[in-house]
């Protein structure tokens, strides 16, 4: 059967190629879009967790997508947080989304930030000591080919890069909290607080204490941030569902079209197989296996083209986070195969049910 399938696919190379490319398109579309959206999400979570806090305190109506919030919490709340039992340290952070550069910067208070975070390390230069100094992470520095002491424009103001830190902590650019408050027009305000619990106190106990003390605020466990972000990101689930549906539909329609035209062209061949005693199940398996082979090739090509597209995107936008998990690779393959199998099912059943005499007489 495999030889027959292969020879049939070879016999119509253009159609086979177009079908494979179309399936690959569905796979690549799903993987690239999921890779970019999850990449953004996973990277945001990873860098938020990289700050080192166990909890994030925000106004009750704030979004876990930091870029969507402005500075509304007074910085003095820090003292109140640190008075809560089990809290080791709290640091205010003002988040500002730079629309022109399409990334977020954090305003930090170096003293309290240092008490919450213990992993900030520099590959060049060091912390800022002047109001017009910033530190940038390695990815940002590589993408902009910047080094310590280089100038950097932020919100129309010129800053000097005082140091380059290893990526994975907060935003790609960190600047003094007071400077950003001034530029943002929100003096003494923060977007959120990162809170570190004392090691000896159970996290759940600290969480309950914080909730009790700040009942009108949103307290988020950083360990649960990814899950919460997925649930709260606007239309994220709908986007994922839409992408999966588009991928399945592309495979379904292409395979349906390819297999339907195949069985029409091969009506006589199906008649011959029936005259040789091929059962209905044999003919159904023949068509389904042919579509499976197309889908398998499409999945392979889809993976390859995803890799190429991602590489090109990364080369063009080095700060772009991309994350394609095994789950999404398996899902993309499964969706392509499911769509392809469903698309081949009707032509397969139609072929199996053909009248052998009519099929043999088909010209």
């Amino acid at each position, binding site marked *: 059967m495999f030889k027959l399938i292969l020879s049939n696919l070879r016999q119509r190379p253009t159609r086979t190629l177009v079908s494979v490319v179309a399936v690959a398109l569905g796979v690549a579309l799903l993987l690239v879009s999921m890779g970019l959206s999850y990449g953004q999400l996973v990277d945001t979570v990873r860098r938020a967790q990289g700050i080192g806090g166990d909890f994030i305190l925000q106004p009750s109506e704030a979004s876990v997508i930091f870029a969507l919030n402005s500075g509304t919490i007074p910085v003095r709340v820090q003292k109140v947080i640190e008075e809560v039992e089990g809290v080791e340290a709290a640091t205010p952070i003002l988040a500002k989304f730079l629309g022109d550069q399409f990334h977020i910067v954090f305003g930090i208070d170096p003293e309290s930030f240092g008490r919450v975070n213990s992993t900030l390390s520099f590959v060049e230069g060091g912390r800022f000591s002047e109001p017009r100094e910033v530190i940038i992470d390695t990815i940002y520095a590589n993408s902009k080919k910047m080094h310590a002491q280089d100038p950097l424009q932020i919100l129309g103001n010129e800053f000097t890069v005082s140091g380059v830190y290893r990526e994975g902590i907060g935003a790609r650019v960190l600047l003094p909290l007071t400077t950003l408050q001034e530029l943002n027009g929100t003096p003494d305000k923060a977007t959120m607080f990162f809170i570190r619990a004392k090691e000896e106190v159970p996290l759940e106990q600290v969480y309950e204490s914080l909730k009790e003390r700040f009942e009108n605020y949103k307290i988020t466990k950083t360990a649960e941030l990814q899950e919460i972000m997925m649930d709260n990101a606007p239309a994220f689930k709908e986007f994922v569902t839409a992408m999966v549906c588009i991928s399945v539909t592309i495979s379904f329609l292409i395979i349906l079209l390819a297999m339907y035209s195949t069985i029409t062209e091969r009506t006589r061949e199906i008649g011959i197989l029936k*005259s040789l005693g091929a059962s209905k199940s044999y003919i159904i398996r023949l068509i389904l296996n042919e579509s499976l082979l197309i889908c398998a090739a499409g999945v392979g090509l889809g993976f390859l083209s995803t890799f190429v597209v991602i590489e090109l995107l990364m080369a063009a936008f080095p700060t772009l986070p991309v994350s394609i998990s095994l789950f999404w690779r398996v899902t993309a393959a499964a969706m392509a195969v499911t769509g392809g199998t469903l698309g081949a099912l009707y032509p397969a059943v139609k072929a199996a049910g053909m009248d052998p005499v009519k099929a043999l007489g088909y010209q």
Partner: protein
Amino acid sequence: MIGMTRRKDVVVVEDLQMVYRVSKVEVPALRGVDFSVKEGEFVAVIGPSGCGKSTLLHLIGGLLQPTSGRILIEGVSISSVSDFERTEIRRQRMGFVFQSYNLLNTLTARENIALAKRIQGNGHYEDGSARKILRMLGLENKMDHKPWELSGGEQQRVAIARAVINRPAILLADEPTGSLDSENSRMVLEMLRELNSVYGQTIIIITHDPEAAATADRVIEMRDGKILNRVQNMFYAMEEKRS
């Protein structure tokens, strides 16, 4: 014909009627056909176009279902079994040869023949007897050619090899020489004759060709969906029974 005293009936056709329905019009193709074919017999069915020869062959082969009547293949009524069982009988007990060869163009001669074996459920086809058949059909050097690389005669020989590779109880041939020149026709008929005499292959051949009909042991003549020489065929059957 093989020299046996009592041969069993491989095919028995009883009062076979076939009516095609074209929209609301009924077109009778067979109007009560009776005959039987013994094991190892070579029977030719002749008659003008539209007399029902091909319909008869397709009915015997289980490719069509009769309107009424019965067809027994080695004692099993293929007209009353399920589609699945009919397919099984076709796969295990029958071989078809068509006028237009009907080889799969995407496969080589070897693969075309192997396909029949695989559909039957046997993985490898080049066993001793199969090799003998291929040698007899003069196909040993053509096995890796695609159908379009073969002459009409060679294609038909591949089709015959494919039909007999599973050693079917009956070989059904529909105008096997209809598309061949006289030289290739003679060769194909000789091969069918040899399959019948050497291997005892039961053969039913549909033909217009008097030379092809003359190759057979017995001729069934049809016209307007009926057998013309019915009495002669009945006598033949009685003779067989007596012997």
